[in-house]
């Protein structure tokens, strides 16, 4: 069997690549290690309930009919209607620090007004920052030298609290780098979170993934789940074939891998040059899901998402301890505008975690540690938000170890490598990457990453 293209990984970016190629009659096969599709944005079942993995909300919300937005481009390129995604918008979210809070909705002007009200001295600088952001071409695929987002923010804003408050949700939702972001990543995130906005798909990630998988298959694409790639075989620096763990070899003109840059190169045979340790991502999270016996609003949670920092300075780095309880994200799935209220209350709590620490725990310690750190995070949270511990009827916690197990991302690094390869090129000819390490993040970003790489490296050259 010889394919036009092989794709490694059936997450959003892999599926999107597959749809684009199958749409124009290329012979494509996606190879997925797990039995379920989705990769970093998947779902799982526990006791009859279905939970999304990691998804708090989809960023980049744009209403139907808005053109030239990332969501609009995604829908057009994959030929979906806006209604197909069944997006339900957030109500109101908040960035909560000890002395100040900024609320935001999907109406950007509301956020801009909050900034003016809470930080009157920063109004002028904030306007100039917005102008810079609006005029910046963050989606360019050219690799440029990294620019520090903090440095640019400091050029416009003199209050470090405002800088930290703006960075807090953007780093939490997409920074593979500690304490800073590349400016283009910052602009992507700023636009996707504040200027566009948050929504959740009715039916969760399963709905979105099924839409993509169904479209891919209906276009003739082949999907092999439960089959891991054992090696990416190359000859004289060019891609030749994939060998699957069962021994089968699939040959193709080219391959596009969504499993991460270093992760991809590690599979190459013969092996490629030694990797740069700086290219290995380390940012990971622990996340607990709490099913509660009433609507979160009845417990006093009226926000869609709260991004919080218990200290005046927000630190976004790998903690020395297993979990950093001083900051986090709390998401109430119920506080999105679903056509029908969700049957159960669902609260999700996410904190930065240290992958090495979680990796070292033996099984029994690991289970104990999950319980202990979940308790500590909740204890800290109580200073900010109502205590809901009495109302919990079901809970589940996953850690960097879990993320590694299901996604293969080294360190369970959900945002991948701090060094992004925007043009998707690898040292191996005809082997490209898409997804997290290409640099467009989030549901919409990952999907666009697959689309862009399919267009750039395959369709344009046909």
């Amino acid at each position, binding site marked *: 069997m010889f394919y036009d293209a092989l794709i490694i990984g059936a997450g959003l970016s892999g599926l999107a690549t597959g749809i684009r190629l199958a*749409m124009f009659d290329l012979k494509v096969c996606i190879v997925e290690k797990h039995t379920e599709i989705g990769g970093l944005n998947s779902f799982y079942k526990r006791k009859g309930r279905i939970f999304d993995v990691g998804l708090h909300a989809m960023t980049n919300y744009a209403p139907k009919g808005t053109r030239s937005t990332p969501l*609009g481009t995604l829908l*057009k390129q994959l030929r979906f209607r806006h209604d197909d995604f069944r997006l339900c918008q957030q109500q109101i979210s908040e960035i909560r620090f000890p002395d100040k809070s900024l609320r935001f909705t999907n109406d950007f002007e509301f956020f801009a007004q909050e900034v003016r009200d809470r930080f009157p001295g920063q109004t002028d600088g904030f306007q100039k920052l917005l102008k810079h952001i609006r005029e910046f071409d963050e989606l360019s695929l050219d690799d440029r030298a990294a620019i520090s987002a903090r440095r640019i923010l400091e050029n416009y804003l003199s209050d470090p609290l405002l800088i930290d408050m703006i960075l807090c949700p953007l780093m939490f939702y997409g920074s593979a780098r500690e304490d800073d972001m590349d400016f283009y990543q910052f602009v992507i995130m700023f636009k996707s979170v504040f200027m566009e906005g948050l929504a959740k798909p009715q039916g969760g990630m399963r709905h979105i993934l099924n839409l993509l998988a169904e479209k891919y298959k209906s276009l003739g694409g082949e999907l092999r789940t439960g089959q891991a790639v054992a090696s990416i075989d190359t000859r004289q620096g060019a891609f030749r074939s994939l060998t699957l763990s069962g021994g089968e070899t699939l040959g193709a003109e080219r391959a596009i891998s969504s499993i991460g840059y270093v992760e991809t190169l590690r599979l190459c045979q013969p092996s490629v040059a030694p990797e740069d340790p700086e290219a290995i991502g380390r940012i990971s999270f622990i996340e607990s899901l709490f099913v509660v016996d009433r609507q979160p609003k009845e417990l006093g949670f009226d926000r869609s998402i709260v991004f919080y920092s218990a200290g005046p300075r927000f630190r976004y780095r790998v903690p020395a301890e297993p979990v950093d309880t001083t900051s986090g994200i709390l998401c109430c799935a119920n506080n999105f505008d679903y056509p029908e209220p969700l049957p159960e209350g669902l609260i999700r709590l996410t904190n930065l975690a240290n992958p090495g620490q979680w990796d070292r725990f033996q099984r029994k310690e690991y289970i104990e540690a999950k319980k202990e750190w979940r308790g500590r995070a909740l204890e800290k949270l109580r200073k900010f938000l109502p205590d809901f511990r009495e109302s919990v009827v079901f809970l589940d916690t996953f850690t960097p170890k879990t993320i590694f197990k299901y996604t293969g991302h080294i360190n369970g690094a959900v945002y991948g490598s701090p060094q992004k390869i925007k043009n998707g090129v690898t040292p191996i000819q005809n082997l490209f990457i898409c997804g997290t390490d290409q640099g467009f993040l989030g549901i919409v970003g990952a999907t666009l990453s697959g689309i862009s790489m399919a267009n750039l490296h395959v369709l344009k050259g046909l």
Partner: protein
Amino acid sequence: MTKEEVRAAILEILSDIAPDEDLSSIDDDKKLREQFNLDSMDFLDIVMELRKRYNLEVPEKDYEHLVTLSSCVSYLQPLLKNRQLVG
């Protein structure tokens, strides 16, 4: 294909590419890019669809002819006049 058929064929491609757009009010002499906010990715799709449906290759230097619906028709009609839908 007649001019009218070429026009219909392009409209069909556009409706597949931009399912949320209302094409009934299309102005044949206005830029497609502006009417439907098509970007370079969309033009890639128009070209790819022509290739897929009619086995027609549009070289990159000719993309400039795909500006309005009527300019598309004038450019494509001579090329498509002896062609039919593939398979």
